[in-house]
């Protein structure tokens, strides 16, 4: 069964610091996604990673995928308050989407 684990589940950071969120999954998958969700809102797509070694960057966020280790990382560089949100990874195997429990990120001044 396809399972997705994220860690940490809660992360409190100071502005300007760097940190990494980890996403492990249990079986081979077709795609890996990262989403952002603000409180009471819907999900916003951040990245779609399709192949081993894929790396994508947008602003202060960078995502990477290692399909052999079944691991994706979301790296945050020089965090700012606006990045406070919950971040989810999800994997897709034959259209069966499975989400991690999410990482609730708080960036403090």
């Amino acid at each position: 069964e396809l399972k997705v684990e994220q860690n940490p589940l809660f992360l409190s950071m100071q502005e300007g610091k760097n940190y990494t969120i980890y996403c492990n999954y249990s079986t081979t998958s077709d795609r890996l996604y990262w989403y952002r969700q603000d409180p009471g809102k819907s999900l916003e797509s951040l990245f779609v990673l399709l192949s081993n070694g894929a790396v994508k960057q947008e602003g202060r966020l960078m995502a990477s995928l290692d399909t052999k280790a079944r691991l994706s990382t979301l790296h945050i560089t020089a965090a700012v308050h606006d990045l406070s949100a919950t971040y989810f990874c999800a994997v897709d195997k034959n259209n069966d989407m499975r989400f991690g429990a999410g990482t609730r990120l708080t960036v403090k001044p």
Partner: protein
Amino acid sequence: NAGVTQTPKFRILKIGQSMTLQCTQDMNHNYMYWYRQDPGMGLKLIYYSVGAGITDKGEVPNGYNVSRSTTEDFPLRLELAAPSQTSVYFCASSYAHEQYFGPGTRLTVT
């Protein structure tokens, strides 16, 4: 383009009542999905569709039904509401590996 729209935004149901959550997309996407999100949790896939006339079960389909008679619409039916179905429901459509989510329906069953 309105994107993915969902109605209603909020609903309170009594145990045993039925209702249909509506989902419409105007992007001509073939793939559509229904998810539920319980408080503090990730999303769980209820049903998905790869095109009009085709639906398939996801991770948590029990207690729900779907239909896909047109490309645009993908309604989710709850036949006998139970408290365990209290959740936020998101509909999504997909094209070229990108998923586009609707604003959600917050459902409470009491």
